[in-house]
């Protein structure tokens, strides 16, 4: 094992740190989040640094980096609470398209890498929590192509996406994955803000007509491609959360060094020092489990792979909750206001549990694998 960043990874992380420190500094980040539309300049700057094409093959205009490169990149993005659709598009959708194979790679991967296309995986349905098997969203053959009916919700940046990768049920019960451009007729988009100042959308399909080549995969291949997307997304999210914890710990320690009560800096009170120490322990564990998560992406044994990712996600949620709660507590009343960025970190770390399968879901996965072993 070797935990040292390669030269390329280090340089990429350094450049990203500089970009994020500047362009995602508190005020600029807030201003960007307040707009409902994506900031094209910010998005282009991520594409330029290679973030969007990181793991996409060089044949398709990407950088063909190993999966482990997700870690340095998403730790940096997490430090800056970058809310742009990097994970839904460049990580999850790229992984899904790559796993599905066929001509769709040529069609979508170069445009994901350049940032021209913004994709998001639409896999959740109302009332079905994290169940990734399509149920009420149905696709049926129509005029040589497909007809799509039903609803998807909680589509990460679904409003900003230029296309969605939608899971649907065929008449025979098979899972289908369809690429649906956002200008398709017969789709109603309900775009809403989220607790962590990102956005998500509900998509209602009412006889949306798609060409034959919208189909990316079906049956078992579709299930595997979807699983691939969720696993890559989980790994990136674990790294993002670990990066957010790292930065939040710095912010909180700085606050305790400067804020004075009872004639001395808060940092001089042992009770509060111990809280910071506990935050550090949690952050280090979360960071370690982020390594487990990216390692899982090259783990050949599918059972072990699922276990690693579920474990990492569980730990990211637990540690994230602890670090976030303590950070607010140590900021006192100021931590409760919307005026400092501590609250933004708190909410992102809270939401990290709710995305891509919450702790209950990960525990259920682990219990299932345990029972099977």
């Amino acid at each position, binding site marked *: 094992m070797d935990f040292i960043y390669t030269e390329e990874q280090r340089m990429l992380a350094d450049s990203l740190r500089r970009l994020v420190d500047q362009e995602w500094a508190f005020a600029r980040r807030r201003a960007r989040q307040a707009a409902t539309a994506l900031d094209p300049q910010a998005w282009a700057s991520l594409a330029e640094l290679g973030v969007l094409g990181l793991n996409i093959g060089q044949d398709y205009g990407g950088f063909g980096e190993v999966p482990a490169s997700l870690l340095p990149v998403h730790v940096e993005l997490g430090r800056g609470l970058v809310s742009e659709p990097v994970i839904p598009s460049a990580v999850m959708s790229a992984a899904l398209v790559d796993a599905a194979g066929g001509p769709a790679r040529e069609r979508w991967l170069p445009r994901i890498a350049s940032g021209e296309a913004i994709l998001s995986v639409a896999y959740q349905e109302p009332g079905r929590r994290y169940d990734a098997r399509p149920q009420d969203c149905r696709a049926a053959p129509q005029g040589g192509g497909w007809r799509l009916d039903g609803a998807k919700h909680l589509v990460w940046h679904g409003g900003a996406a230029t296309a969605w990768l939608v899971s649907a049920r065929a008449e025979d019960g098979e899972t289908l994955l369809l690429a649906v451009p956002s200008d398709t007729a017969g789709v109603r988009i309900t775009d809403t803000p989220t*607790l962590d100042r990102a956005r998500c959308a509900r998509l209602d399909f009412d006889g949306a007509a798609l060409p034959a080549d919208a189909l990316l995969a079906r049956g078992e291949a579709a299930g595997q491609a979807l699983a691939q997307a969720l696993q890559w997304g989980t790994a990136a999210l674990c790294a993002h959360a670990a990066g957010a914890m790292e930065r939040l710990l710095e912010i909180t320690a700085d606050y305790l060094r400067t804020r004075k009560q009872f004639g001395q800096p808060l940092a001089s009170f042992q009770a509060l020092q111990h809280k910071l120490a506990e935050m550090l322990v949690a952050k280090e564990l979360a960071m370690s489990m982020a390594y487990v998560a990216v390692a899982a992406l090259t783990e050949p044994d599918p059972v072990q792979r699922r276990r690693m990712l579920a474990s990492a996600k569980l730990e990211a949620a637990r540690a994230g909750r602890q670090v976030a709660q303590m950070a607010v507590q140590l900021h006192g009343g100021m931590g409760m206001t919307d005026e400092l960025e501590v609250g933004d970190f708190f909410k992102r770390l809270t939401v990290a549990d709710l995305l891509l399968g919450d702790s209950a879901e990960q525990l259920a996965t682990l219990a299932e694998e345990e029972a099977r072993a």
Partner: protein
Amino acid sequence: MNLTWTPQERRFREEVRAFAEAGVPPELRAKVLAHQRLERDDYVRWHNILADRGWGAPSWPKEYGGTGWNALQRLIFEVECFKAGAPRLLPFGLSMIGPVLMKYGSPAQRERFLPRIIRVEDWWCQGYSEPGSGSDLASLKTRAERDGDHYVVNGQKTWTTLAQYADWMFCLVRTDTEARPQRGISMLLLDMRSPGVTVRPIRTLDGGHDVNEVWLENVRVPVENLVGEENQGWTYAKYLLGHERTGIAGLGHCHRELGVLKRMAAQAQSGGRPLLSDPRMRDRISRIEVDIMALEMLLLRVAANNGGTPGPEASVLKIRGSEIQQDLAMLQMEVAGPDAWPYDPEWMFAEADDHGPGPEMAAAAGAGYADMRKTTIYGGTTEVQKGIIARLMLGL
């Protein structure tokens, strides 16, 4: 020792329950149980309904228009009202400045201010914390200088809850800068409509507006609005904080939110079954029911022993009560699960056209979890409470 409720106490509970169930207007109950935002009139309305029944000041002695109830009765009343979906009683008049005026106020102050608290004819707010003085309240810097028959007040208060509706503020000010910090503090009753008072909202994590900054610039306060004696304000302030902390255990809140949690878990589906039937969720709910039971018995013991006058035990109640309130909010968020993610503060008003895309309560659950972090901070942080326990209960 008698560890059962007496027939009188049971009858009292039935009486309060029947009143609360019939007395809380349905639209108000719906707002409260859905965690929608309450506005000025919502609170005032409930206070007046109680006042009409003669229960407008449940913690006050009869001579001031109160019910004369003992501590157990007050607790029963709180729990039953919360369970019925009543808004919380505004603490600023009833639990804070009211008791202070009864003990330390002049007859004229008592006569003028106490009756107007019961129907919220005067809405009070608490001028304690300042930007540089939170846990270290005694370091407060707002100055009051004597000018003839007036004090002239300059400074800034913060975290002033619902000051946007307030008619009056009870305000800690420094009247002697030479003395030890605790010695030079006085308490003034300050008319919020005075020239020089500016209230600015502070948005909190849930996007809501409950707390404010209040700027005081050359605000003239008549000398007769000084509470007790000059430079003795710290004594009154501490007396008041003790009252604040018992209510802060939030037992009624815990009972109500447990009910909300169970309803949410019964409605949420997981794998084709109600989440409430999931053994993992059942375990969590059972655990928190135990927590609430323990808190309740602790509260009853403290109430019975002290005849309602809270001592340092209030800190024990505050620590535990605030943690349980937070745990309940966390469980509600976990029940909402993925649906707690979409959130817009605009969805939280009953009058809003749109309450969000998810199931009822889902959007409120994530924001509520964030908002409830305040409970271990306000009214003296958990760290401050632990310091009080160490000093006053353990003698360390």
